[in-house]
């Protein structure tokens, strides 16, 4: 197929955004493009709360899956002690007679045996359908239980996956104490980082969150909480009194920031992800305004830039005028990278396969970018909209190769997963050693990654790894309609989902 035939959209971000607003482009997300259910995403946030026990009111499998997926990783990479995920082990009898009595007993048991700060009751499909009155059970048990109780209605069928993030962040706001004059004063130099998930940061590598904490502390402020990246009830209770909420991501955590602003008047630092020099400067400056640390932030930015100046100038000299083709699958990140490439390195950014759904769902980041005067080129091919995640990946790969055919190895670089095999140099910012990506240090790291990929361009990509992802043998993948998703979200899903388009969050 000629590349022109595979184009669905080609134009500026502002045009795509307008088309999406006016419903002139189909923004439905393919059923195969989302994987976890609302229960899983809710649990991902809850797994980031310290001394919190979740009782999954349902069969054992729901709790077990979450425990294997999130808690084991926290032990492995983040040095957390063993953390339980409880279940009421709903069985056939419970399905017939209801599970309210069991849940009440479970609450009392859990409070006695773990003495947690918070007990969360997370509903599953099974208990959602049989109609257990979880709120009433929780209310009835409050007087007898030392822990704070929080019911979360996150049945897997009750909304698309993202709704679980918003729901839990919204509910966590209920655990927060209203600020007092005294508490505001005490935390007048403190920041909450919001939008984290799963648990504490990895212990053995630098991470983006660690870099943000270093920068915040560098301008003389403190971190009150990383919500929910291993935060305690006390930190959460104090959170509204912090001087400002700084977003780690404008999808996850945005709901919490807005809720805290609405209820408690806690200001929110609404800038783009701090990828690159300009964005970091803006991120810090906006936070500093609320902290009364403008001069300190300015000084810090000066020092940080001074530390990378030599490397940055050399890299910029080399990168200026080159093209950065950015995989748009992770929409917010792709916008941030586009911002960095244009502003910090003088490159031309083209975002490839920025799903029209994102043009509708990622308004905040798009608004910011457009206001900042960055309006990157967007190309959407049929592959992005193909059904089945592997089909989409395979077709997009072919279309990408076709598109990149006109670009030379020394003129353009591709930002995306190393599971993709473009004909131009590739930078995979998710590779574990490429951290931090935020901040000044991150900007230099990214610049060095780009230069390194140009240096290695003559090597090409591994025949071995390409064959692993895209087998030459056409029979190898026929019918499967998929590859498998094992550990990483960047790997394609292996499940073939029923058609029906993306459902809106039913709680919205």
């Amino acid at each position, binding site marked *: 197929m000629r590349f022109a035939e595979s184009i669905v959209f080609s134009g500026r971000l502002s045009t795509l955004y307008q088309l999406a607003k006016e419903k002139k482009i189909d923004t439905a997300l393919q059923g195969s493009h989302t994987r976890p259910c609302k229960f899983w995403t809710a649990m991902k946030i809850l797994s980031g709360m310290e001394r919190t026990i979740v009782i999954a009111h349902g069969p*054992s499998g729901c709790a077990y899956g979450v425990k294997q997926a999130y808690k084991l990783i926290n032990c492995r990479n983040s040095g957390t002690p063993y953390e339980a995920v409880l279940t009421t082990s709903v069985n056939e009898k419970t399905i017939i007679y209801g599970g309210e009595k069991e849940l009440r007993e479970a609450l009392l048991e859990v409070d006695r045996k773990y003495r947690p700060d918070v007990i969360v009751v997370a509903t599953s499909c099974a208990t959602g359908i049989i109609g257990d009155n979880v709120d009433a059970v929780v209310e009835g048990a409050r007087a007898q239980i030392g822990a704070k109780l929080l019911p979360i209605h996150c049945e897997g069928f009750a909304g698309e996956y993202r709704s679980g993030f918003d729901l839990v962040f919204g509910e966590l706001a209920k655990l927060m104490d209203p600020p007092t004059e005294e508490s505001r004063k005490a935390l007048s130099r403190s920041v909450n980082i919001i939008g984290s998930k799963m648990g504490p940061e990895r212990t053995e590598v630098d991470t983006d969150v660690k870099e943000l904490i270093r920068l915040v502390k560098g301008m003389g402020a403190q971190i009150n909480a990383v919500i929910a990246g291993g935060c305690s009830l006390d930190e959460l209770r104090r959170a509204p009194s912090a001087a400002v909420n700084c977003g780690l991501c404008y999808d996850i955590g945005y709901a919490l920031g807005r809720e805290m602003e609405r209820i408690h008047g806690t200001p929110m630092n609404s800038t783009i992800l701090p990828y690159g020099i300009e964005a970091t400067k803006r991120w810090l400056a906006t936070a500093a305004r609320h902290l009364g640390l403008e001069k300190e932030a300015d000084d810090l930015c000066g020092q940080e830039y001074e530390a990378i100046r030599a490397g940055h100038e050399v890299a910029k000299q080399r990168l200026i005028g080159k093209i950065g083709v950015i995989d748009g699958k992770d929409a917010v990140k792709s916008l941030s990278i586009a911002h960095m490439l244009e502003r910090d390195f003088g490159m031309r950014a083209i975002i490839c396969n920025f799903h029209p759904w994102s043009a509708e769902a990622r308004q905040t980041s798009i608004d910011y970018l457009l206001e900042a005067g960055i309006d990157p080129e967007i190309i959407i091919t049929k592959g992005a909209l193909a059904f089945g995640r592997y089909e989409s990946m395979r077709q997009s790969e072919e279309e990408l190769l076709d598109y990149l055919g006109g670009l030379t190895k020394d003129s353009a670089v591709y930002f995306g997963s190393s599971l993709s095999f473009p004909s131009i140099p590739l930078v995979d910012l998710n590779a574990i050693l490429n951290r931090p990506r935020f901040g000044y240090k991150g900007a230099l790291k990214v610049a060095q990654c780009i230069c390194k990929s140009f240096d290695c361009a003559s090597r090409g990509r591994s025949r071995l790894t390409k064959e692993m992802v895209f087998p030459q043998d056409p029979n190898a993948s026929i019918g499967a309609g998929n590859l498998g998703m094992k550990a990483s979200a960047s790997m394609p899903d292996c499940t073939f989902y029923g058609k029906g388009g993306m459902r809106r969050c039913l709680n919205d």
Partner: protein
Amino acid sequence: MLKRLTFADTAHSKDPLLSCALEGVASVIAGIKDACVVIHSPQGCASAVNAAYDRHEIDLTKRKIGCTRLFESDIIMGATSKLERMIKQADENFKSRIMFVVGTCSADIIGEDMEAVCRGMRGEVGAKLIPIIAGGFRGNSNTGVDLGLEALLQLIAPSALRIKRTVNLIAPQATVNPGWQADLQWVKEILFELGISVMTTFACNTSLEEIEKAGTAQANLLLSHDAGYGFASRMHEIHGIPLILDDIPLPIGLENSNNWIRALGEHFSCSGKAEKIISRGEERVVGILRKRGMMMIPRYHNCRIAVASDMTFGVGLLRMLYLELEMLPELLIVKSSAPEGARLMEAELEELRISPEVVLDADGYQMKEALKAIEVDAVAGSAWESYIAEELGVKVAFDVFAPTNRVLYIQEPYWGYEGMLRLLQAFAGDWERAFRSKSIELDYL
């Protein structure tokens, strides 16, 4: 009588160590060639199915899983037509010979008539449709293996023919060995050497034809003490195939391997061949350990050990740990409780004349409390127990069972002679790591 530990506050809240019935069902289906699966469920349940396919190490390009993605409106209005559409779509895309249509919690509770849907669509699709109701609330993953196996009974052709020196192998996947397929391979090699053919494996890379002719086998061999007993019993009832070797531990360690091979030899009248395998195996184990493992004698002698595993390894490891390594099993934490397996454990402990504390159907809380209560020097278990051991100050943790932090590109057996050596090799590596210094004194120089 097993000396069972008891715990307060565990009747209504569990920290589960086993997945739900859906994953068990999927772990049977994943073992069948030319099969696809449609799960009638919200999208999150697909992760349990994928976990089962991961356990089978199914090539990423060869998975055939469909999901109806049920949402609230489907729960209220029913989703039969959605299921029918999905079945057609899956049939067109996957072109499988057999399609398992699996109802999970949601479909099960709202009463989706999966059987009627499958019956009604038989003429419309190419694949043979097999409905399975597998609401996660119907039990744990072992129950699911039983449900999956039960669904296969209808595919076995009735036959008066009995082919001598043939066996069916049942439930090889119901074990905590992350490399269980290597155990299965070892079993097949031993059988081959004894002149016994495998008719059907339930199920690992098994074709529809193999399942159909399972009724002609001479005997059934169960490769788990956690699941498959019900299926074996039904096979006996329906097809008259007896279950053999179910009264001895599986071939874990030297003596259990010897006993298991010897029992096979006796049953199939090939004791001479069996003794040759035993003698060669013993020679291999002793030869290697004499060269490599001499240090394990002072290390393991009277080392107090806790085992955290399923019943398959809980029963199987006892003899090796106690008699062969001279360890002292002080605590057995078993995450399942199949009565047949528990009886076998009881008999084994009686014969060995030891009485460690036992936890059956253990959950995470019980596991941790038991390890707090019973002082041990080492724990053999999964990554979970290795973290708990570290937290509690137990110096040595053998991280050998699933989920493990051990990276395995190539599956390793734990059964048989080679398997025993692999297990001991893993033990030795973890022992060494436990006592290696993790800090570098930079000021020392």
